């Protein structure tokens, strides 16, 4: 009877039960008790949500939203800092020690930047040529 009262059956079933209730005093009485119960429950005094409470809800949502934006910004800043730190370490390690760099430079480049003349026999033709240019630029070959 409860489910019939709540209209939960399919249309045809509801009609069938309605016809039964019309003929059955006991079921009709139970239906009336359910209706009376609903009327009674409807008398409950329910207050309304106050404007102040509604405002507090809106403000609470705003506060949560602002905190979420701040947390996201913080996370992005930390991620950027980590990436920069990793890149800096990688670049420093890829650059290597000055000696290693010097050892990797070609002969002519090392000769061009050498502070003192290098014994000719120790250099390749390219290196000797580079050193001659440097000496010429420095006036050591008689050029002005």
């Amino acid at each position: 009877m409860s489910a019939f009262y709540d209209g939960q059956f399919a249309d045809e079933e509801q009609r069938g039960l309605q016809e039964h209730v019309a003929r059955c005093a006991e079921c009709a009485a139970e239906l009336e008790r359910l209706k009376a119960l609903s009327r009674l429950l409807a008398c409950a005094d329910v207050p309304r949500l106050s404007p102040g409470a509604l405002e507090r809800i809106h403000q609470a949502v705003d506060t949560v939203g602002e905190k979420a934006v701040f947390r996201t910004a913080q996370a992005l800043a930390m991620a950027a800092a980590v990436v920069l730190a990793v890149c800096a370490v990688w670049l420093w390690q890829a650059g290597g020690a000055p000696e290693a760099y010097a050892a990797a430079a070609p002969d002519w480049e090392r000769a061009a930047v050498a502070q003192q003349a290098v014994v000719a026999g120790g250099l390749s033709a390219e290196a000797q040529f580079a050193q001659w240019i440097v000496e010429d630029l420095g006036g050591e070959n008689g050029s002005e």
Partner: protein
Amino acid sequence: MKRNYINGSRPELPDTGGGCLHGSDSELLARAQAGDDSAFHELIERHSASLFRLGFLLVGNVADAEDVVQETLLGAFQHLVRFKGHSSVKTWLTRILVKQAARHHRSRFRRRTISLEETGGKPGEAGEASALDTQIQSADARMDVRAVLEALSAEHRQVVVLREYEGMSYREISEVLNMPPGTVESRLFRAREHLKRLLKAYE
């Protein structure tokens, strides 16, 4: 951004570029999920009154009902991604609220039990039938519907409130309470039988 919604006045909401705030609940929620907070505020305006009414009927007092509604809407806002559209927004919010109200009720029951024990009372006096007896003894002859609802167990009160006050179908109630419709039907039947027994005390 702080908003002032006192006295029901709608503030000038920021131009989010998303057009007006009318639209279905699902559209508003989708916009909120995309980052449009004003859409969620519109959902608050639409649903807070009915959520408060439901919360009040479940927890029995204004202060707790306000807390429950705020926790419900904050929880929904913080977990927007969890809404997948399998139910309506109203059903989703109602489901959250019912859980929050049950949590509040359990917390209050524990506090009441501890209080009775501390004053020398028996823990059983904090039970379902005793609550109504206390109410009847202290109240006048006038019917107190809220006291009757308070005397129900949380499970019975949930189905009664959702059916009698929210007008939800058994299918909708089953979605909110995450139980089969058959369980809703049997629980509602027992709840009504219990209500009839309780209300006999007023005859």
